[in-house]
């Protein structure tokens, strides 16, 4: 599945466009990260892409066809930022909801659905607390539940809004590896909002840099450069190779 945004523009107020004329294209099985300052429009971009907000200009295309709503087309999974629900569901039930598309309006989840759910739970590694209530989870645990929920529907493209934000570094590591594995083994594309340039460098193929009145899209190693960071974030940063590791892992730090 291939996804493209063509000249997308959006603003909450008519005078003030948050996004203007954004275009990019993501091929099948690639990971894309979106980097940008707080409030620059990353979440807005994801919502527009998914049709939760309506592009004021431009459009999203999936496999060349105009995509307007997740109601019309399967294959895209969304992982929201972790938040509490009014009603308390068990983790298993919550993840089962990821199977909604496969359950008719008057139906119940089938045995197959339940199997897929267990699969998703074990992929994410939270099968142990499948019977716990979501209302009693920590923010980090909840984030994992939402990822599992999206996976339960076997998406081709996964859209995540800051999936690492509440996770401890161990879980972050697991999630990143998971994303990598999903790409490698199942060819799932990922679009990820993140505040970690390091993570972007580590797992993403493409990066979209969002700035005020500008944006840049391209291969991650070309986009995430000290110069671009200076340009888009107005800070000095240092990108370097972590010493003493065999795999040439890149790291990122802000310097005074």
């Amino acid at each position: 599945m291939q996804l493209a945004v063509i000249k997308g523009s959006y603003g909450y107020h008519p005078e003030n466009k948050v996004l203007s004329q954004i275009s990019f294209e993501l091929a099948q099985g690639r990971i894309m990260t979106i980097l940008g300052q707080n409030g620059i429009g990353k979440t807005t971009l994801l919502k527009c892409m998914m049709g939760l907000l309506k592009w004021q200009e431009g459009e999203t295309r999936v496999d060349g066809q105009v995509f307007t709503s997740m109601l019309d087309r399967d294959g895209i999974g969304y992982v929201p930022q972790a938040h509490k629900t009014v009603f308390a569901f068990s983790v298993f039930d919550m993840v089962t909801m990821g199977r909604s598309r496969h359950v008719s309006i008057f139906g119940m989840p089938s045995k197959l659905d339940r199997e897929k759910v267990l699969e998703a739970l074990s992929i994410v590694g939270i099968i142990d607390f499948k019977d716990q209530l979501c209302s009693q989870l920590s923010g980090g645990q909840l984030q994992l539940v939402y990822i599992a929920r999206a996976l339960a529907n076997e998406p081709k493209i996964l859209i995540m809004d800051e999936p690492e934000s509440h996770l401890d570094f161990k879980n972050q590591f697991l999630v990143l590896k998971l994303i990598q594995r999903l790409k490698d083994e199942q060819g799932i594309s990922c679009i990820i909002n993140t505040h970690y340039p390091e993570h972007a460098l580590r797992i993403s193929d493409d990066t979209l840099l969002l700035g005020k009145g500008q944006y840049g899209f391209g291969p991650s190693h070309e986009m995430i450069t000290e110069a671009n960071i200076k340009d888009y974030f107005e800070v000095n940063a240092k990108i370097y190779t972590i010493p003493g590791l065999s795999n040439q892992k890149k790291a990122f730090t802000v310097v005074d």
Partner: protein
Amino acid sequence: MKPITRNNTFIVLLLGLLIVFSFASLFLGRYYVEPEHVLKLLWSGLLGSPLDSVDKTVVLDIRLPRLFIVILVGAGLSVSGAAFQGCFHNPLVSPDVLGVSAGAGFGAALGILWTNGVTGVTAAMAFAFGLLSVVVSLLLSRLKNESSILALFLSGIIVSAVFNALISLVKFVADTDSQLPAITFWLMGSFSNTTFEDLGKIIVPILVGIGVLIAVRWRINVLTLGDEEAKTLGINPGKTRMIIIAAATIITASSVVVAGIVGWVGLIIPNLCRMIVGSDHKYLMPASCLCGAVFLLTVDFIARVLTPSEIPIGILTAIIGAPFFALVYKKTEGC
């Protein structure tokens, strides 16, 4: 005990109670009929050839239709309440939040004013205005582009308020000798003097409504996540909600038509069940359905048997339901 086992036990328990209470209410009443005679009558009634007698009138023409109507109304209202509470993300919502009771009440009041008594016209108008009020609420909520749940509630409140005001207006112009009492008592709700004819009017809409709501129970779980999240899961929340509203409205309007406004059941029974089975609509919907039937059956039994005078059902549901609810409420943790 594991929650699932506990929930199933609870549902089976309710089913048992429902059956026992149903029989009890056929055997007992102000007019004494010998138990074996009741059985004989039920049997011959099944065969279609009961003897014409006072006993037959009491058991087959008075108690039997009333029993069915009470069960249908109790089950229907509380399952509607549970569905609404789920799909509007608010445990304080009752099935008439969109104005169906007020609308139906106005229709009935107008019918009484017009035909000078409670007639077939009253029932038809109650039903029609019940549906109308919900349609108006929906249209009103569409005044704004983004039709949020809050908009729907506000519309419902407006429509209810207007129809309640119109009821008052009708009461105000009604004559105090006969029309005002007729309207007042009609609105209080009662199952007295319900017939097989009444049952015939409501059995199909209520059963279909209950069926739809119970079938859609898993989908309601998804709706509780909120509209945006539901959409990302591929569910159209508006469409699902519309189906729920249609089913619940038809149930409520039908109940109002035969039994007047029976408040409280649709609000409290689902909350009570939620305390016991949790907020998973997979269990909550059938549990509410049965619990509502059992509850209303009990209350109606008391209404029929306790005193020679028939206390309006709306009064009893509240007076009996309240302490009971308070008790269960105190016992359970969380909410």
